[in-house]
């Protein structure tokens, strides 16, 4: 279960990055997911250099194989990080979407 306090502390940083554009610096496609992510697999995880020079690691969604490439432009969006437990708080966070 995600800690609601931890999620709350992360909100400010998440808010600053939402909507920012960036470029993929490296990538992989996760086919054997960790716990909590099985309903989303397979999915790409990408390292992105954002327009403000910050570097982030995030899941890429609404994707096609051809967009898993170094140099692909993406935008930071808000999504559910993973399926929450039935009683736990819902984890919202950053993902990226190809431009």
């Amino acid at each position, binding site marked *: 279960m995600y800690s609601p306090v931890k999620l709350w502390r992360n909100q400010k940083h998440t808010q600053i990055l939402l909507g920012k554009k960036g470029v993929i610096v490296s*990538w992989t496609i996760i086919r054997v997911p*960790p716990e*909590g992510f099985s309903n989303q697999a397979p999915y790409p*995880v990408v390292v*992105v250099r954002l327009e403000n020079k910050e570097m982030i690691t995030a899941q890429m969604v609404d994707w096609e194989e051809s967009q*898993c490439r170094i140099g692909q432009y993406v935008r930071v969006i808000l999504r559910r990080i993973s399926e929450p437990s039935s009683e736990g708080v819902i984890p919202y966070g950053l993902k990226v979407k190809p431009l």
Partner: protein
Amino acid sequence: MNIVISGIGITKFGELWDMSPRTLARQAGEAALHDAGLVSKDIDAIIVANMLSGMLGSQEHLGALFGEELGFLGKPAMKVEGACASGGLAVHTAINSLLGGQYKRIMVLGIEKMTDQKPERVASALIGAGTNEERLAGITFPGVYAVLARAHMEKFGTTQEQMAAVAVKNHFHASLNPLAQFHTLLSVEKVMRSACVADPLKLLDCSPISDGAAAVILSINKEPRMKDSVSVVASQVATDTLGVARRKNLTGLNATEIAAKKAYEDAGVSVADIRVAEVHDCFTIAEIFAMEDLGFFKKGKAAEAIMQGQTTLGVGKGVVVNTSGGLKGCGHPVGATGVKQIVEIAVQLRGSAGKRQVSGARIGLTHNVGGSGATCVVHILKRT
């Protein structure tokens, strides 16, 4: 420095269903004492290396646990953790404790029990070595190294076949090591056909989930009964950003470069003097990175060299790498690996490696990495 390795002990690595952590510890610890011709009262302190006992076994406080288990009741005991570099860090800590003068003989026990939980649970625990951001991205450890592999492939044209060759070599070496997890031989085709775990890494590019323990006894003075001894002549640690996103570059591990450089300097040797090495091949790409970062090959050249057999036992003319089978072939019980590497090099330098002996090896190196390269520990050992 000149820290004597007075005793070594190791268990089989693999899926050891009926061996509890206490059983593994006793096996490795008692073997080390026996090898050293010592008894527990001769040891001044025990340092334990482990990463996952809390997350997978709900057990912390390992210094006290194994201190009691191994007959060191009352003696100083503690745990050192640095993800997969825990073993190397524990050795480094023991060495510095000896140099500090408070202790004369320290046992370092590296131990990990990973098969009591499902692989999915273990994979989730292992990404505890990364950043919170990486965990929220849903990445796994294969995924992190896959990202590094992709960057290396983009910059140097490294191929998946070249990466596969690392696994083939290490399985060949492992087949000569009775205590290794795997004794099956691989081929590049077999590795290429295995299921994709995180593009471009496939199942057989990845080290397994394993149980195992390894112990070394380190002494500040040469033991009187030992005629031929092996010593640690350099012990260096370096760190880098916890997550891969903020690294200066994704095509090498800077922590390895820094630690290695300082180790060669301390030991007064150059990379060309190293005849045998145990490097951290948690994934095939990691060995390629290591060979370049440690200075054995120029950047972008290691993959082809490995594929040509230049680091294979009986084939290459220079350094022979991962005669134990490496993490891929021998197994990777996380906390034990760094200590196992010391054991393997000690065995090589003593000349008692049997079928996997590198002839005439006098200087060896161990390379132990934590996480995706946030911690690196390099030791240089010499036969004295």
